[in-house]
């Protein structure tokens, strides 16, 4: 029955990074499910052999390793976690097929609209900062309305507990705050998005989130470093 701590932790490993909002989704999901895991930190600009072997198609984090089986892509990982550890804690996706579809739709929408715009605001990819800010604002407007419909007066998109859409959108919050600082724009405007602002506070302070959501200043610093690394790679 007894096994060494290492052996048990090695059953679930996450190749990720403290600053990656995609990886943060996975950390929070595993914490919600009470699953212990080994945290593997990738170094920017120097991908590990394990990452290259585990995700040869995209070579990106996060990758979940479960008994050696590699599962990449954060939204796919979340669903895997939900299915494998279905009896642990609350469900990540709701039981009702229609509610699941709504969450999957908005999750895809969030990553389609917010993720690229965030990179522009951070200066990581080229583009117009004003257009990017407008794109985020427009998306948040839709998500504000979606929150009211999905939450039905409860604290999270999923209701009483953090769920799939909370994780997908919530994980962007750290970088959106940083991007706002970097680009000098307002993003999560309380006047415009009162529901999302209140939800964001709840998400940030949730026990499963607060230890893994990086501080804004740390992210701003990391962003500058990331840009340097990318520039150096481009000029080689």
């Amino acid at each position, binding site marked *: 029955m007894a096994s060494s701590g290492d052996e048990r932790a090695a059953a679930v490993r996450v190749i990720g990074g403290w600053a990656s909002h995609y990886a943060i989704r996975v950390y929070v999901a595993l914490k919600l499910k009470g699953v212990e895991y080994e945290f593997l930190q990738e170094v920017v600009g120097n991908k590990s052999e394990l990452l290259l072997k585990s995700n040869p198609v995209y070579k990106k984090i996060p990758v979940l390793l479960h008994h050696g089986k590699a599962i990449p892509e954060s939204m*796919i990982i979340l669903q895997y976690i939900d299915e494998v550890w279905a009896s642990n804690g609350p469900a990540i996706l709701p039981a009702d097929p229609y509610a*699941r579809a709504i969450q999957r739709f908005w999750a895809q929408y969030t990553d389609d609209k917010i993720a690229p715009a965030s990179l522009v605001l951070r200066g990581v990819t080229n583009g117009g900062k004003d257009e990017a800010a407008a794109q985020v604002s427009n998306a948040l407007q839709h998500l504000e309305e979606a929150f009211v419909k999905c939450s039905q007066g409860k604290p999270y998109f999923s209701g009483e507990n953090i769920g799939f859409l909370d994780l997908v959108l919530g994980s962007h919050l750290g970088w959106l705050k940083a991007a706002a600082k970097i680009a000098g724009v307002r993003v999560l405007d309380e006047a415009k998005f009162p529901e999302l602002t209140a939800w964001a506070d709840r998400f940030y302070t949730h026990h499963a989130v607060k230890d893994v959501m990086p501080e804004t200043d740390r992210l701003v610093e990391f962003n500058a470093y990331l840009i340097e690394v990318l520039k150096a790679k481009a000029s080689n």
Partner: protein
Amino acid sequence: MAEKGVKVFGMWASPMAIRVEWALRLKGVDYEYIDEDLANKSDALLRYNPVTKKVPVLVHDGKPIAESTVIVEYVDEAWKDGYPIMPADPYERAQARFWARFAEDKCNAALYPVFTTTGDTQSEVVREAQRCLKTLETALEGKKFFGGDAVGYLDLVVGWYAHWLPVVEEASGATVVTDEELPLLKAWFDRFLAIDVVRATLPDRDRLLALNKARREQLLAA
């Protein structure tokens, strides 16, 4: 009066809409198909999908769902006692979702330039598209279909290639899927097109070819 039944808002030449039809037909679900003129979208479509305003949209007992891959998973879950679309095993489900995303994000993006280019540029993008499809093809190794012995989620998501790619190739004067470069994929094309629900729904080839030829001319002239 509560709306009952299943509606699909699509467009006759849309690969995204057809996958929804395939899913419903595999489940034996009756549905009303509404063909949209994308240059003149119906009020109903805009009411059911005000966020992205795109087809396909599935409306089930008055409740709308957009995004074809989301819809296909919904169909599988809503009619869970019917034909199994998603694999049962969580790891296999993750793999099916992974390859579906790869095809949608990478392969489709790699294929589009074949349609919009000519000459040496086209030859270059054809090679790129082949590389992408070769990666996807690895998910077929040792199997009849992506889903195994029977069609599944991934077959439905990439199945449109079987009918559309030969048309795009003809319209563009290029060859992408050949026996030499993509033998597994080519063989799967034939098996997929022989499936009853697929045969029953494919858009008319000549009509599709004419549409693609006209679009390519427009794009090249611009």
